[in-house]
């Protein structure tokens, strides 16, 4: 008997609580799942402020919630994947087929590119000539306003070299330096 009364009371409590909940939901307007029984054209009982503010928040999310925050790898790249990328054909060093011996010095050179050894020879001689000129001038910004001509041992200035500055080099004329 007592158990039955107790269960009935509990049931009544439950029903009343549910009813109160539904009433509250109706009032606040959060139960959007239920379709309206009567579609009435008129102002709603209470303005739906909460929903609007919620919509606004979703449209402008904080940086941390956005999906497009920072690209990051999802999984570790396996050694097989890494190896196929590193040992791909285009990553290999290409073999050069345009190497030939230089006809002048015999060292190797690339086609249509100056021979490194011959160029180094020329650079050395040019440096010595420049040293000579530096000694002749004796200081900076003293270059004369006439042309310069380089003469080697046993050479006399020709008719064209009359008005030119002469730089003497005490050695035999190199084969690659023509008049």
């Amino acid at each position, binding site marked *: 008997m007592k158990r039955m009364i107790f269960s009935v009371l509990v049931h009544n409590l439950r029903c009343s609580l549910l009813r109160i909940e539904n009433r509250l939901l109706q009032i606040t307007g959060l139960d959007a799942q239920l379709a309206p029984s009567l579609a009435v054209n008129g102002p709603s009982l209470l303005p739906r402020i909460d929903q609007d503010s919620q919509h606004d928040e979703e449209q402008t999310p904080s940086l941390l919630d956005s999906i497009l925050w920072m690209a990051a790898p999802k999984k570790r790249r396996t050694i097989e994947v890494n190896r196929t990328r*590193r040992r791909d054909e285009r990553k290999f*060093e290409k*073999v050069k087929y345009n190497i030939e011996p230089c006809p002048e010095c015999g060292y190797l050179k690339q086609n249509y590119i100056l021979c490194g050894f011959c160029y180094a020879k020329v650079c050395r001689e040019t440096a010595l000539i420049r040293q000579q000129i530096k000694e002749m001038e004796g200081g900076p910004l003293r270059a004369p306003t006439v042309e310069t001509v380089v003469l080697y041992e046993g050479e006399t200035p020709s008719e064209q070299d009359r008005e030119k500055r002469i730089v003497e080099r005490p050695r035999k004329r190199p084969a690659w330096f023509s008049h």
Partner: protein
Amino acid sequence: MAAAMRGVGFIRNIVGSLHLRLQILGGASQQLSYLHTSISLDSKHWEKNNRKVYPPQLLDEPRRPAEVYHSRRQIKYSKDKMWYLAKMIQGMSIDEAIAQLEFNDKKGAKIMKEVLLEAQEMAVKNHNVEYKSNLYVAESFSGKGKYLKRIRYHGRGMFGIMDKVYCHYFVKLVEGLPPKPEQKTSFDQAKDYVQSLKNRTIIHSL
């Protein structure tokens, strides 16, 4: 202290030569005992290959081509970057390899060229190679050297450990013409595939 170190080195050399002699004796009787000898961090195994002595050849045997092993240790370069250059010169004749390395712009190419020239000189001087051009690169590869660790400072007081990379470079020159790589036609490959399918058998059957 120095004398003790020298003594240890001397003992190691003796032990090494004993190992080699035993292996050679084992090989002569055509029954190699596969002893797994442990390698310490300081053992330079590649160079020891040069000290291998074969028994005298019989008259009917084909002439064994001369082999030269050379390496350079602790090169300040990355082993991965070095590997690309090592892969390029695999199988080339030595002149071709030196020419390619001369006109390559990488840092490792200059070092590799020096190593090849050293090996060529060694071959002519010590290993009874008649013509210095008659050599080809049989094996060429790079290995990891001992790294130094340094601290790399990041923001917010974070730090990372930076590795100062070093690598080794190993090369084996063999006398003779470089072997031609086999050119398999597509028909041959298809034939081999069909043959491999035909060779399949059921194991443990009656």
